[in-house]
């Protein structure tokens, strides 16, 4: 029996040793990654091309299946010129994997192909580094660059823009419809003649229908005076949105629209001539062309609120905040990717208008030009963290209305409420006076805008009151904060983000606060 365990133990130790050996064998391969950075110093600067045998390191890029093959073509040049190996890794879920791998230091140096609206969260998570494009910045479409800027800092390099456009089947329809009423008229006529099954393909519920929603006056978030998204002004349950969904539901009930809005299936409908219209993106151009259906691309039909406009998106490239090769990565983007050759390849493979001006200016594909025209009023996809909460609820609401489970109004109002809840503010509407007195009156500490013990209540005089609080003698500072956070706060003289109010108690006493929401002034009553 001793023998039995000898065997077991041998196996056990062997497996551990194997691990250790494997590490030992790995070690030497790692050493050179450090060394050669110093070693080639003697080499003349002119032509290190031939001499470089051992790569001095690795620059890792994650990309999707469309872009990876393009980047593969750069490998040889890059190694020859920098002595650094370019490794392109094919990924199916770029962002999810990056979120997981980057924090443990296993992320790539460069992340290739992220829509700009996902960049905000990544910046907040500290996962991506800023980029300096230097003079190359002039070569990019300004609006695309703007989509990469957060707090005044550029965080990504754009390479393509994208938006939906309106397609019609030129064999079935001669004149493109000018209004959504025309869509119904033309479609119903064709349906009557049994030339089509439905008046239009519907490829989704939110993003894909946005040009319809906007034509009826719907919107997603309002903008504040500075043109920034205002996540407190949600348009999911706006009258325009409700009207648009009512239009949709009405047509589904009449049998004008399919009941299934699966993207691929509805594309198949259009491509087999079973519907005359579809709203599609440049990414679908390939398959529509391949299908051989005669088509033309045009602007969106108008509705009660004018011509509809789509969302626009920007495809971007990011640098990992924890990359040890930030400078090299940046140079790679500027010198290798932001070139006519690669940008043209990206444009041709990706079928999206380039964000790189020298390529965009040469754009002669009539289809892509038509996309540009349809998207001339496009609104950039809001890149605010709140969008995460919006998509699913919005989608559910449209589906529930379509399936007749709720009326459009009920469904959207409900979704609106859900989203407002999720925009994370259970404290929405709270008015508070955080300050250095709070720990004396039952808060966990000072300066807590979310502390319920000091929350104000609206009185009959229309003003907000809190207190009286019994405080010890001393100097105090306070501020007014709304919604339980510091996002909106008012300092002395009612100035937003202004300096603190100060007051002094000569001896122990009570203090009351009164706040006027019109002037944003705080009155401090000391007894």
């Amino acid at each position, binding site marked *: 029996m001793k023998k039995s365990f000898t065997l077991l133990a041998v196996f056990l130790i062997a497996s551990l040793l194997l691990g250790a050996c494997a590490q030992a064998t790995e070690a030497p391969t790692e050493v050179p990654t450090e060394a050669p950075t110093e070693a080639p110093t003697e080499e003349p600067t002119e032509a290190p091309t031939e001499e470089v045998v051992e790569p001095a390191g690795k620059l890792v890029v994650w990309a999707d299946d469309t872009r990876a093959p393009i980047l593969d073509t750069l490998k040889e040049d890059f190694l020859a010129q920098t002595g650094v190996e370019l490794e392109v890794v094919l990924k*199916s879920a770029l962002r999810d994997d990056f979120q997981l791998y980057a924090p*443990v230091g296993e992320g790539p140096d460069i992340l290739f192909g992220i829509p700009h609206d996902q960049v905000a969260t990544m910046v907040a998570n500290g996962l991506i580094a800023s980029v300096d494009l230097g003079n190359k910045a002039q070569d990019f479409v300004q609006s695309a660059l703007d989509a990469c800027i957060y707090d005044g800092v550029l965080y990504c390099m754009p390479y393509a823009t994208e938006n939906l456009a309106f397609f019609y089947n030129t064999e079935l329809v001669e004149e493109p419809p000018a209004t959504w009423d025309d869509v119904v008229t033309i479609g119903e006529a064709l349906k009557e003649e049994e030339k089509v099954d439905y008046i239009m393909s519907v490829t989704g519920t939110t993003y894909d229908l946005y040009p319809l929603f906007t034509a009826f006056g719907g919107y997603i978030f309002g903008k504040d005076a500075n043109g920034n998204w205002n996540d407190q002004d949600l348009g999911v349950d706006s009258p325009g949105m409700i009207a648009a969904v009512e239009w949709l539901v009405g047509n589904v009930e009449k049998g004008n629209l399919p009941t299934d809005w699966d993207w*691929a299936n509805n594309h198949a409908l259009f491509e087999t001539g079973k519907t005359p219209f579809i709203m599609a993106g440049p990414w679908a151009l390939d398959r529509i062309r391949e299908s051989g259906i005669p088509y033309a691309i045009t602007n969106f039909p108008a509705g009660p609120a004018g011509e509809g406009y789509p969302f626009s998106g920007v495809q971007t490239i990011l640098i990992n905040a924890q990359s040890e090769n930030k400078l090299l990565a940046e140079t790679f983007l500027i010198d290798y990717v932001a070139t006519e050759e690669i940008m043209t390849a990206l444009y041709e493979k990706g079928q999206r208008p380039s964000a790189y001006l020298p390529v965009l200016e040469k754009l002669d594909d009539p289809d892509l030009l038509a996309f540009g025209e349809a998207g001339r009023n496009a609104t950039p996809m809001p890149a605010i963290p709140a969008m995460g909460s919006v998509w699913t609820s919005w989608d559910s609401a449209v589906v529930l209305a379509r399936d007749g489970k709720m009326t459009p109004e009920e469904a959207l109002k409900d979704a609106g409420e859900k989203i407002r809840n999720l925009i994370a503010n259970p404290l929405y509407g709270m008015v508070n006076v955080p300050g250095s007195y709070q720990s004396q009156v039952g808060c966990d500490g000072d300066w807590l805008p979310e502390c319920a013990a000091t929350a104000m209540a609206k009185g009959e005089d229309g003003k907000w009151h809190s207190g009286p609080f019994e405080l010890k003698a001393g100097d105090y500072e306070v501020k007014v904060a709304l919604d339980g956070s510091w996002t909106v706060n008012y300092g002395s003289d009612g100035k937003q983000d202004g300096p603190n109010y100060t007051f002094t108690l000569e001896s122990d006493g009570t203090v009351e606060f009164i706040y006027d929401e019109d002037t944003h002034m705080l009155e401090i009553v000391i007894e």
Partner: protein
Amino acid sequence: MSNIAQTYKRLRSSQKFQKRFGVAIRLIIAVILIAFSIFPVLWIVSASFDNANSLATQSLIPANAGIKNYQRLFNLDPNFSFGELNYWTWLWNSIKVSGINTVLGVSITTIAAYAFSRLRFKGRVPILKSLLLIQVFPNLLALVAVFTLVSSIGNIVPALGLNTHTGLIMVYLGGSMGMNIWLVKGYMDTIPRDIDESAHVDGANDWQVFTKLILPLMRPILVTIGILSFIGTYGDFLMARVLLNDSSKYTLMVGLQLFTAGQFDKKWGVFAAGALIGALPIMLLYFLLQDQIVGGLTRGAVKG
């Protein structure tokens, strides 16, 4: 008329007819059941040979039959590039990882089961019970924890870290004792103890009893849990996806997922082709070992 009725009655009463009638009915039911079980498979086959590549237009016999999807899968279609696509590497990785995991896992389980079945010690029942309870933990939700763990180990011993097959296998081995140990122990309990007692009297030690006497009798259950664990590992997607990072390290399920991302529709046919070929090794294994599996599964649970 009456003649026929009489004949019918006579026939019906005859046991032979009853039996034949029963067999006929059962055969009809069999046809329906077989249709139910193979229809989706036929559907994959048809999709894999359909050049048109669209769910909406697909029919059981493709109008547009061809082998384009297979060409694409093996990178033989010059107009269609996925970048680094290593189907055969993925398949080999899957077989390798599942194979190693199965052999190690079954060994660990069987050896441990001997202690639970033949030795009596303090803590035996509690351990058995806890083994089951631990398996109940929703593993999916511990993914982050496992990921962090493997990543830390990898920073100490790179060969066991993220993006290595050894790391993945170790994680799989962590779950190998679970339900399987119950099956193996149950089966072992059915082997009469008189056998090993007499061997002990003859001077054999536990290890000899285990290897010489018990192990040979365990073949059916070993085959069964072997194949179950092979299939489980082969079909695992979540753990492998999280721990493997490099296209050349992917297992088949992770690799195939590349076809379902992005424009899934465009690659539907390629996915079907890849899935079909990927399912073949398991099918083969199954049909070869079918009888053993049945024997193993039940006797383990029956406990004599």
